[in-house]
Protein backbone atom coordinates (compact mmCIF):
# COMPACT_ATOMS: atom_id res chain seq x y z
CA UNK A 1 0.00 0.00 0.00
CA UNK A 2 1.12 3.56 -0.74
CA UNK A 3 1.29 5.82 2.28
CA UNK A 4 2.02 9.46 2.91
CA UNK A 5 3.91 9.95 6.18
CA UNK A 6 4.33 13.30 7.90
CA UNK A 7 7.11 12.77 10.42
CA UNK A 8 8.42 15.23 13.01
CA UNK A 9 12.11 15.82 12.32
CA UNK A 10 14.26 17.63 14.86
CA UNK A 11 18.05 17.54 14.73
CA UNK A 12 18.67 18.06 18.45
CA UNK A 13 17.14 19.09 21.78
CA UNK A 14 17.52 22.80 21.10
CA UNK A 15 16.99 22.76 17.33
CA UNK A 16 13.71 23.76 15.76
CA UNK A 17 11.73 20.82 14.46
CA UNK A 18 9.31 20.49 11.56
CA UNK A 19 7.22 17.91 9.76
CA UNK A 20 8.79 16.24 6.73
CA UNK A 21 6.64 14.28 4.30
CA UNK A 22 7.72 10.87 3.00
CA UNK A 23 5.98 8.62 0.47
CA UNK A 24 6.46 4.97 1.15
CA UNK A 25 5.22 1.62 0.01
CA UNK A 26 4.40 -0.68 2.94
CA UNK A 27 3.13 -4.23 3.23
CA UNK A 28 0.21 -5.01 5.50
CA UNK A 29 2.34 -7.71 7.14
CA UNK A 30 4.81 -5.19 8.52
CA UNK A 31 4.66 -3.77 12.00
CA UNK A 32 4.51 0.01 12.23
CA UNK A 33 8.14 0.16 13.36
CA UNK A 34 9.24 -2.15 10.51
CA UNK A 35 7.55 0.25 8.14
CA UNK A 36 9.68 3.04 9.65
CA UNK A 37 12.77 0.78 9.41
CA UNK A 38 12.14 0.46 5.67
CA UNK A 39 11.75 4.23 5.30
CA UNK A 40 15.04 4.62 7.18
CA UNK A 41 16.88 2.16 4.92
CA UNK A 42 15.78 4.19 1.96
CA UNK A 43 16.83 7.44 3.62
CA UNK A 44 20.22 6.00 4.46
CA UNK A 45 20.78 4.70 0.95
CA UNK A 46 20.09 8.24 -0.28
CA UNK A 47 22.64 9.56 2.18
CA UNK A 48 19.98 11.20 4.38
CA UNK A 49 19.67 11.07 8.16
CA UNK A 50 17.35 8.25 9.29
CA UNK A 51 14.33 9.03 11.50
CA UNK A 52 15.39 8.53 15.11
CA UNK A 53 12.94 6.64 17.33
CA UNK A 54 13.22 4.47 20.42
CA UNK A 55 12.45 0.76 20.55
CA UNK A 56 13.83 -2.30 22.23
CA UNK A 57 11.74 -5.42 22.92
CA UNK A 58 9.24 -4.82 20.08
CA UNK A 59 6.71 -6.97 21.88
CA UNK A 60 5.02 -4.51 24.19
CA UNK A 61 6.83 -5.26 27.43
CA UNK A 62 9.73 -2.85 27.83
CA UNK A 63 8.07 0.54 27.39
CA UNK A 64 10.87 1.96 25.27
CA UNK A 65 8.90 2.74 22.13
CA UNK A 66 6.31 5.48 21.90
CA UNK A 67 5.11 8.09 19.46
CA UNK A 68 1.88 9.88 18.72
CA UNK A 69 0.23 8.60 15.55
CA UNK A 70 -2.58 10.71 14.10
CA UNK A 71 -3.11 12.29 17.49
CA UNK A 72 -3.11 9.09 19.54
CA UNK A 73 -0.21 7.87 21.71
CA UNK A 74 0.93 4.42 20.52
CA UNK A 75 -1.49 4.64 17.60
CA UNK A 76 -5.10 3.59 17.17
CA UNK A 77 -5.10 0.16 18.79
CA UNK A 78 -6.20 -0.33 22.37
CA UNK A 79 -3.99 -2.16 24.88
CA UNK A 80 -0.98 -2.01 22.57
CA UNK A 81 2.28 -0.17 22.36
CA UNK A 82 3.38 1.24 19.02
CA UNK A 83 5.73 -1.71 18.45
CA UNK A 84 2.66 -3.98 18.50
CA UNK A 85 0.77 -1.91 15.95
CA UNK A 86 0.54 -3.53 12.51
CA UNK A 87 0.20 -2.00 9.11
CA UNK A 88 -2.96 -3.98 8.34
CA UNK A 89 -4.62 -1.14 10.26
CA UNK A 90 -3.94 1.13 7.29
CA UNK A 91 -5.10 1.20 3.69
CA UNK A 92 -3.75 2.39 0.39
CA UNK A 93 -3.45 6.17 0.20
CA UNK A 94 -3.62 6.78 3.96
CA UNK A 95 -1.94 9.82 5.43
CA UNK A 96 -0.21 9.33 8.78
CA UNK A 97 1.08 12.04 11.11
CA UNK A 98 3.84 10.91 13.48
CA UNK A 99 4.96 13.10 16.39
CA UNK A 100 7.00 12.61 19.54
CA UNK A 101 5.45 12.75 23.04
CA UNK A 102 4.87 16.47 23.62
CA UNK A 103 5.63 17.46 27.20
CA UNK A 104 8.20 19.75 28.74
CA UNK A 105 8.94 16.93 31.19
CA UNK A 106 9.99 14.82 28.19
CA UNK A 107 12.31 17.03 26.11
CA UNK A 108 12.76 15.85 22.52
CA UNK A 109 16.26 14.50 21.95
CA UNK A 110 15.95 13.87 18.24
CA UNK A 111 12.99 13.37 15.89
CA UNK A 112 10.64 10.99 17.73
CA UNK A 113 12.95 10.20 20.62
CA UNK A 114 12.32 11.95 23.93
CA UNK A 115 14.24 12.00 27.20
CA UNK A 116 12.13 10.19 29.79
CA UNK A 117 14.69 10.29 32.59
CA UNK A 118 12.17 12.35 34.62
CA UNK A 119 10.35 9.04 35.15
CA UNK A 120 13.58 7.45 36.42
CA UNK A 121 13.97 10.25 38.95
CA UNK A 122 10.38 9.82 40.15
CA UNK A 123 10.96 6.09 40.64
CA UNK A 124 14.33 6.68 42.31
CA UNK A 125 12.61 9.01 44.80
CA UNK A 126 10.38 6.30 46.24
CA UNK A 127 10.13 3.20 44.12
CA UNK A 128 12.03 0.95 46.49
CA UNK A 129 11.59 -0.99 49.72
CA UNK A 130 14.11 -1.75 52.43
CA UNK A 131 14.75 -5.44 52.96
CA UNK A 132 17.45 -7.49 54.55
CA UNK A 133 19.47 -9.03 51.76
CA UNK A 134 20.91 -12.51 51.97
CA UNK A 135 19.26 -15.82 51.28
CA UNK A 136 15.92 -15.77 49.49
CA UNK A 137 13.01 -15.32 51.93
CA UNK A 138 10.43 -18.04 52.41
CA UNK A 139 7.85 -17.60 49.65
CA UNK A 140 4.83 -17.54 51.97
CA UNK A 141 6.35 -15.81 54.97
CA UNK A 142 4.35 -12.62 54.36
CA UNK A 143 0.67 -13.14 53.63
CA UNK A 144 -0.77 -10.81 50.96
CA UNK A 145 -4.54 -10.45 50.50
CA UNK A 146 -5.63 -11.76 47.12
CA UNK A 147 -7.40 -8.48 46.25
CA UNK A 148 -4.33 -6.43 47.12
CA UNK A 149 -2.03 -8.77 45.26
CA UNK A 150 -4.18 -8.37 42.15
CA UNK A 151 -4.37 -4.59 42.43
CA UNK A 152 -0.65 -4.36 43.05
CA UNK A 153 0.09 -6.56 40.04
CA UNK A 154 -2.18 -4.38 37.89
CA UNK A 155 -0.29 -1.27 38.99
CA UNK A 156 3.04 -3.02 38.51
CA UNK A 157 2.20 -3.74 34.88
CA UNK A 158 3.06 -0.10 34.09
CA UNK A 159 5.96 -0.20 31.64
CA UNK A 160 6.87 3.47 32.05
CA UNK A 161 6.23 4.29 28.41
CA UNK A 162 4.91 7.81 29.06
CA UNK A 163 1.77 7.54 26.94
CA UNK A 164 -0.25 8.82 29.90
CA UNK A 165 1.70 12.09 29.91
CA UNK A 166 1.53 12.28 26.12
CA UNK A 167 -2.25 11.86 26.09
CA UNK A 168 -3.03 14.13 29.02
CA UNK A 169 -4.33 17.58 28.00
CA UNK A 170 -2.33 18.88 30.99
CA UNK A 171 0.78 16.74 30.33
CA UNK A 172 0.44 15.47 33.88
CA UNK A 173 2.44 12.47 35.10
CA UNK A 174 -0.05 11.45 37.79
CA UNK A 175 -1.01 8.09 36.28
CA UNK A 176 2.58 6.90 36.06
CA UNK A 177 3.57 8.24 39.48
CA UNK A 178 0.44 6.81 41.09
CA UNK A 179 0.95 3.41 39.49
CA UNK A 180 4.53 3.22 40.71
CA UNK A 181 3.51 4.27 44.22
CA UNK A 182 0.44 1.99 44.35
CA UNK A 183 2.41 -1.04 43.25
CA UNK A 184 4.44 -0.88 46.49
CA UNK A 185 1.87 0.83 48.74
CA UNK A 186 -0.57 -2.06 48.28
CA UNK A 187 1.86 -4.68 49.60
CA UNK A 188 2.96 -5.38 53.19
CA UNK A 189 6.57 -4.97 52.09
CA UNK A 190 5.80 -1.42 50.99
CA UNK A 191 4.30 -0.23 54.26
CA UNK A 192 7.37 0.99 56.22
CA UNK A 193 8.22 3.65 53.63
CA UNK A 194 4.65 4.21 52.43
CA UNK A 195 3.97 7.84 53.37
CA UNK A 196 7.52 9.05 52.86
CA UNK A 197 7.40 7.43 49.43
CA UNK A 198 4.20 9.27 48.58
CA UNK A 199 5.63 12.66 49.53
CA UNK A 200 9.01 12.08 47.87
CA UNK A 201 7.52 10.82 44.62
CA UNK A 202 4.99 13.64 44.41
CA UNK A 203 7.59 16.32 45.16
CA UNK A 204 9.91 14.85 42.52
CA UNK A 205 7.10 14.72 40.00
CA UNK A 206 6.29 18.37 40.74
CA UNK A 207 9.89 19.37 40.09
CA UNK A 208 9.88 17.77 36.63
CA UNK A 209 7.73 20.27 34.74
CA UNK A 210 4.71 18.05 34.30
CA UNK A 211 1.24 19.58 34.44
CA UNK A 212 -1.51 19.12 37.01
CA UNK A 213 -4.13 16.40 36.96
CA UNK A 214 -7.72 17.53 36.38
CA UNK A 215 -9.20 14.04 36.16
CA UNK A 216 -9.76 14.19 32.41
CA UNK A 217 -9.19 10.44 32.17
CA UNK A 218 -7.24 10.60 28.89
CA UNK A 219 -4.31 8.78 30.53
CA UNK A 220 -6.45 5.75 31.34
CA UNK A 221 -7.76 5.63 27.80
CA UNK A 222 -4.26 5.86 26.32
CA UNK A 223 -2.43 3.48 28.66
CA UNK A 224 -1.33 0.33 26.79
CA UNK A 225 -1.43 -1.58 30.07
CA UNK A 226 -4.89 -0.33 31.03
CA UNK A 227 -3.78 1.20 34.33
CA UNK A 228 -6.93 2.71 35.88
CA UNK A 229 -7.14 6.14 37.48
CA UNK A 230 -8.09 4.35 40.71
CA UNK A 231 -4.38 4.47 41.47
CA UNK A 232 -4.55 8.29 41.27
CA UNK A 233 -7.35 8.39 43.85
CA UNK A 234 -5.21 6.17 46.05
CA UNK A 235 -2.23 8.51 45.74
CA UNK A 236 -4.43 11.52 46.53
CA UNK A 237 -5.71 9.75 49.65
CA UNK A 238 -2.24 8.72 50.74
CA UNK A 239 -0.94 12.26 50.20
CA UNK A 240 -3.47 13.59 52.69
CA UNK A 241 -2.58 10.88 55.19
CA UNK A 242 1.11 11.62 54.64
CA UNK A 243 0.59 15.31 55.40
CA UNK A 244 -1.32 14.46 58.56
CA UNK A 245 1.43 12.08 59.66
CA UNK A 246 4.28 14.46 58.84
CA UNK A 247 4.83 17.50 61.11
Amino acid at each position, binding site marked *: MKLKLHVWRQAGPSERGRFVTYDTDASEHMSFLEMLDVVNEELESNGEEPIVFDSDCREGICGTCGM*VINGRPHGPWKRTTVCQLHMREYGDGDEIWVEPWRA*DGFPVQRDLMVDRSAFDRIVAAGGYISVRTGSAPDANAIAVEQVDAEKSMDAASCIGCGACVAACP*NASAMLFTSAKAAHLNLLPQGQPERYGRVLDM*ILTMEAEQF*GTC*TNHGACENACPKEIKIDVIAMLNRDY*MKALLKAS
Partner: protein
Amino acid sequence: MRRVYSLYSTSVGKKYTMAVSGAIFVLFVIVHMFGNLKVYLGPEAFNHYAEGLREFGEPFLGYEWFLWVFRAGLVAFLLIHTVAAWQTSRQSWAARGQKYKKQEKLVFHYASRTMRWGGVALLLFVVYHILHLTTGTLHPDFVPGDAYHNFVTGFRSVPVVAAYTLAMIALGLHLYHGIWSAFQTMGLDGPRTKRWRMPMALAVSLIVVLVNLSFPVAVYTGILQ
Protein backbone atom coordinates in the same frame (compact mmCIF):
# COMPACT_ATOMS: atom_id res chain seq x y z
CA MET B 1 1.29 26.09 59.38
CA ARG B 2 3.79 23.76 57.80
CA ARG B 3 0.97 21.43 56.95
CA VAL B 4 -0.98 24.22 55.31
CA TYR B 5 2.11 25.19 53.39
CA SER B 6 2.86 21.67 52.21
CA LEU B 7 -0.78 21.29 51.22
CA TYR B 8 -0.38 24.30 49.01
CA SER B 9 3.11 23.54 47.71
CA THR B 10 2.09 20.76 45.33
CA SER B 11 -0.55 20.58 42.64
CA VAL B 12 -2.02 17.56 44.44
CA GLY B 13 -2.56 19.73 47.53
CA LYS B 14 -3.94 22.63 45.47
CA LYS B 15 -6.44 20.26 43.94
CA TYR B 16 -7.55 19.28 47.43
CA THR B 17 -8.31 22.88 48.28
CA MET B 18 -10.24 23.17 45.01
CA ALA B 19 -12.19 20.04 45.78
CA VAL B 20 -13.09 21.21 49.30
CA SER B 21 -14.01 24.76 48.25
CA GLY B 22 -15.85 23.33 45.23
CA ALA B 23 -17.83 20.98 47.46
CA ILE B 24 -18.87 23.96 49.59
CA PHE B 25 -20.10 25.77 46.46
CA VAL B 26 -22.01 22.68 45.43
CA LEU B 27 -23.83 22.64 48.78
CA PHE B 28 -24.44 26.37 48.47
CA VAL B 29 -25.86 26.02 44.95
CA ILE B 30 -28.23 23.29 46.14
CA VAL B 31 -29.42 25.28 49.18
CA HIS B 32 -29.78 28.40 47.00
CA MET B 33 -31.92 26.41 44.56
CA PHE B 34 -34.20 25.10 47.32
CA GLY B 35 -34.61 28.60 48.70
CA ASN B 36 -35.60 29.95 45.31
CA LEU B 37 -38.23 27.26 44.87
CA LYS B 38 -40.24 29.27 47.41
CA VAL B 39 -40.93 31.75 44.64
CA TYR B 40 -43.60 29.31 43.45
CA LEU B 41 -45.42 29.76 46.78
CA GLY B 42 -46.11 33.40 46.01
CA PRO B 43 -44.78 36.85 46.98
CA GLU B 44 -45.41 36.54 50.69
CA ALA B 45 -43.66 33.20 51.17
CA PHE B 46 -40.73 34.31 49.06
CA ASN B 47 -40.25 37.68 50.71
CA HIS B 48 -40.61 36.03 54.10
CA TYR B 49 -37.81 33.65 53.16
CA ALA B 50 -35.61 36.50 51.91
CA GLU B 51 -36.21 38.44 55.10
CA GLY B 52 -35.60 35.26 57.11
CA LEU B 53 -32.09 35.09 55.67
CA ARG B 54 -31.41 38.55 57.08
CA GLU B 55 -32.89 37.76 60.46
CA PHE B 56 -31.26 34.34 60.66
CA GLY B 57 -29.85 33.64 64.14
CA GLU B 58 -31.64 36.52 65.87
CA PRO B 59 -31.75 37.42 68.69
CA PHE B 60 -28.42 35.70 69.31
CA LEU B 61 -26.96 37.36 66.21
CA GLY B 62 -27.74 40.87 65.02
CA TYR B 63 -29.68 41.76 61.86
CA GLU B 64 -27.89 40.49 58.71
CA TRP B 65 -24.90 39.24 60.72
CA PHE B 66 -25.33 35.69 59.58
CA LEU B 67 -25.75 36.78 55.99
CA TRP B 68 -22.55 38.80 56.02
CA VAL B 69 -20.50 36.03 57.64
CA PHE B 70 -21.92 33.65 55.07
CA ARG B 71 -21.03 35.99 52.22
CA ALA B 72 -17.52 36.54 53.55
CA GLY B 73 -17.02 32.78 53.78
CA LEU B 74 -18.17 32.26 50.20
CA VAL B 75 -15.90 35.01 48.91
CA ALA B 76 -12.95 33.52 50.79
CA PHE B 77 -13.57 30.08 49.32
CA LEU B 78 -14.08 31.59 45.88
CA LEU B 79 -10.69 33.27 46.18
CA ILE B 80 -9.01 30.02 47.20
CA HIS B 81 -10.76 28.11 44.41
CA THR B 82 -9.93 30.68 41.75
CA VAL B 83 -6.31 31.18 42.76
CA ALA B 84 -5.71 27.42 42.84
CA ALA B 85 -7.44 27.07 39.46
CA TRP B 86 -5.26 29.82 38.01
CA GLN B 87 -2.04 28.35 39.42
CA THR B 88 -2.69 24.76 38.38
CA SER B 89 -3.84 25.92 34.94
CA ARG B 90 -0.62 27.85 34.47
CA GLN B 91 1.44 24.87 35.52
CA SER B 92 -0.39 22.74 32.95
CA TRP B 93 -0.08 25.30 30.14
CA ALA B 94 3.65 25.51 30.79
CA ALA B 95 3.96 21.72 30.70
CA ARG B 96 3.28 21.49 26.97
CA GLY B 97 5.21 24.27 25.30
CA GLN B 98 5.14 22.60 21.90
CA LYS B 99 1.59 21.65 20.97
CA TYR B 100 0.52 18.61 18.96
CA LYS B 101 -0.27 18.97 15.30
CA LYS B 102 -2.96 16.34 15.80
CA GLN B 103 -4.45 15.40 19.13
CA GLU B 104 -7.32 13.03 19.67
CA LYS B 105 -9.42 13.89 22.70
CA LEU B 106 -9.20 10.81 24.87
CA VAL B 107 -10.96 12.35 27.88
CA PHE B 108 -13.86 10.59 29.69
CA HIS B 109 -16.40 13.31 28.95
CA TYR B 110 -16.58 16.71 27.30
CA ALA B 111 -17.41 18.51 30.58
CA SER B 112 -13.85 18.22 31.90
CA ARG B 113 -12.62 20.35 29.01
CA THR B 114 -14.93 23.22 29.96
CA MET B 115 -13.64 23.68 33.52
CA ARG B 116 -11.36 26.63 32.79
CA TRP B 117 -13.43 28.84 30.49
CA GLY B 118 -16.57 27.61 32.25
CA GLY B 119 -15.10 28.64 35.59
CA VAL B 120 -14.32 32.11 34.23
CA ALA B 121 -17.86 32.33 32.86
CA LEU B 122 -19.20 31.40 36.30
CA LEU B 123 -17.07 34.05 37.94
CA LEU B 124 -18.43 36.71 35.57
CA PHE B 125 -21.93 35.41 36.13
CA VAL B 126 -21.59 35.58 39.92
CA VAL B 127 -20.60 39.25 39.63
CA TYR B 128 -23.48 39.99 37.26
CA HIS B 129 -25.95 38.02 39.37
CA ILE B 130 -25.05 40.03 42.48
CA LEU B 131 -25.33 43.34 40.61
CA HIS B 132 -28.64 42.17 39.15
CA LEU B 133 -30.59 40.67 42.07
CA THR B 134 -28.66 41.53 45.24
CA THR B 135 -27.65 45.16 44.81
CA GLY B 136 -30.01 45.93 41.94
CA THR B 137 -27.36 47.99 40.14
CA LEU B 138 -28.11 46.30 36.80
CA HIS B 139 -31.84 45.91 37.42
CA PRO B 140 -34.38 48.09 35.55
CA ASP B 141 -36.92 48.26 38.40
CA PHE B 142 -35.29 47.32 41.71
CA VAL B 143 -37.29 47.67 44.93
CA PRO B 144 -35.11 47.07 48.01
CA GLY B 145 -36.77 44.55 50.33
CA ASP B 146 -39.24 43.23 47.72
CA ALA B 147 -37.31 40.19 46.56
CA TYR B 148 -40.33 38.71 44.76
CA HIS B 149 -40.93 41.82 42.71
CA ASN B 150 -37.23 42.05 41.77
CA PHE B 151 -37.17 38.39 40.85
CA VAL B 152 -40.20 38.56 38.60
CA THR B 153 -39.46 41.88 36.91
CA GLY B 154 -35.80 40.92 36.52
CA PHE B 155 -36.52 38.13 34.05
CA ARG B 156 -38.78 40.03 31.68
CA SER B 157 -36.05 40.61 29.14
CA VAL B 158 -34.65 38.28 26.50
CA PRO B 159 -30.95 39.18 26.96
CA VAL B 160 -31.22 38.57 30.72
CA VAL B 161 -32.89 35.19 30.23
CA ALA B 162 -30.24 34.32 27.63
CA ALA B 163 -27.41 35.29 29.98
CA TYR B 164 -28.86 33.18 32.79
CA THR B 165 -29.36 30.26 30.42
CA LEU B 166 -25.76 30.34 29.23
CA ALA B 167 -24.54 30.64 32.81
CA MET B 168 -26.62 27.63 33.84
CA ILE B 169 -25.16 25.56 31.01
CA ALA B 170 -21.67 26.51 32.19
CA LEU B 171 -22.71 25.68 35.76
CA GLY B 172 -24.12 22.30 34.74
CA LEU B 173 -20.92 21.30 32.95
CA HIS B 174 -18.75 22.57 35.81
CA LEU B 175 -20.85 20.73 38.37
CA TYR B 176 -20.93 17.48 36.42
CA HIS B 177 -17.18 17.20 36.11
CA GLY B 178 -16.50 19.04 39.36
CA ILE B 179 -18.60 16.81 41.61
CA TRP B 180 -17.20 13.63 40.13
CA SER B 181 -13.71 15.04 40.09
CA ALA B 182 -13.85 16.16 43.72
CA PHE B 183 -14.48 12.57 44.79
CA GLN B 184 -11.48 11.42 42.78
CA THR B 185 -9.28 14.26 44.09
CA MET B 186 -10.16 13.49 47.69
CA GLY B 187 -9.47 9.81 47.10
CA LEU B 188 -13.09 8.80 47.70
CA ASP B 189 -13.34 5.79 45.43
CA GLY B 190 -14.47 2.86 47.54
CA PRO B 191 -16.19 0.09 45.56
CA ARG B 192 -19.66 1.47 46.26
CA THR B 193 -18.75 5.17 45.95
CA LYS B 194 -17.13 4.45 42.62
CA ARG B 195 -20.36 3.09 41.22
CA TRP B 196 -22.57 6.05 42.08
CA ARG B 197 -20.30 9.08 41.99
CA MET B 198 -20.54 9.77 38.26
CA PRO B 199 -24.32 9.14 37.88
CA MET B 200 -24.87 11.18 41.04
CA ALA B 201 -22.82 14.07 39.62
CA LEU B 202 -24.91 13.96 36.46
CA ALA B 203 -28.20 13.83 38.41
CA VAL B 204 -27.27 16.73 40.71
CA SER B 205 -26.09 18.93 37.86
CA LEU B 206 -29.18 18.20 35.76
CA ILE B 207 -31.53 18.94 38.67
CA VAL B 208 -29.74 22.19 39.54
CA VAL B 209 -29.74 23.40 35.93
CA LEU B 210 -33.35 22.49 35.21
CA VAL B 211 -34.79 23.88 38.44
CA ASN B 212 -32.79 27.11 38.16
CA LEU B 213 -33.78 27.56 34.53
CA SER B 214 -37.42 27.01 35.41
CA PHE B 215 -37.46 30.42 37.15
CA PRO B 216 -36.74 32.67 34.19
CA VAL B 217 -38.89 30.44 31.98
CA ALA B 218 -41.79 30.66 34.43
CA VAL B 219 -41.52 34.44 34.50
CA TYR B 220 -41.09 34.75 30.77
CA THR B 221 -44.10 32.57 30.01
CA GLY B 222 -46.22 34.39 32.57
CA ILE B 223 -46.61 31.49 35.02
CA LEU B 224 -45.00 33.71 37.64
CA GLN B 225 -46.38 37.25 37.66
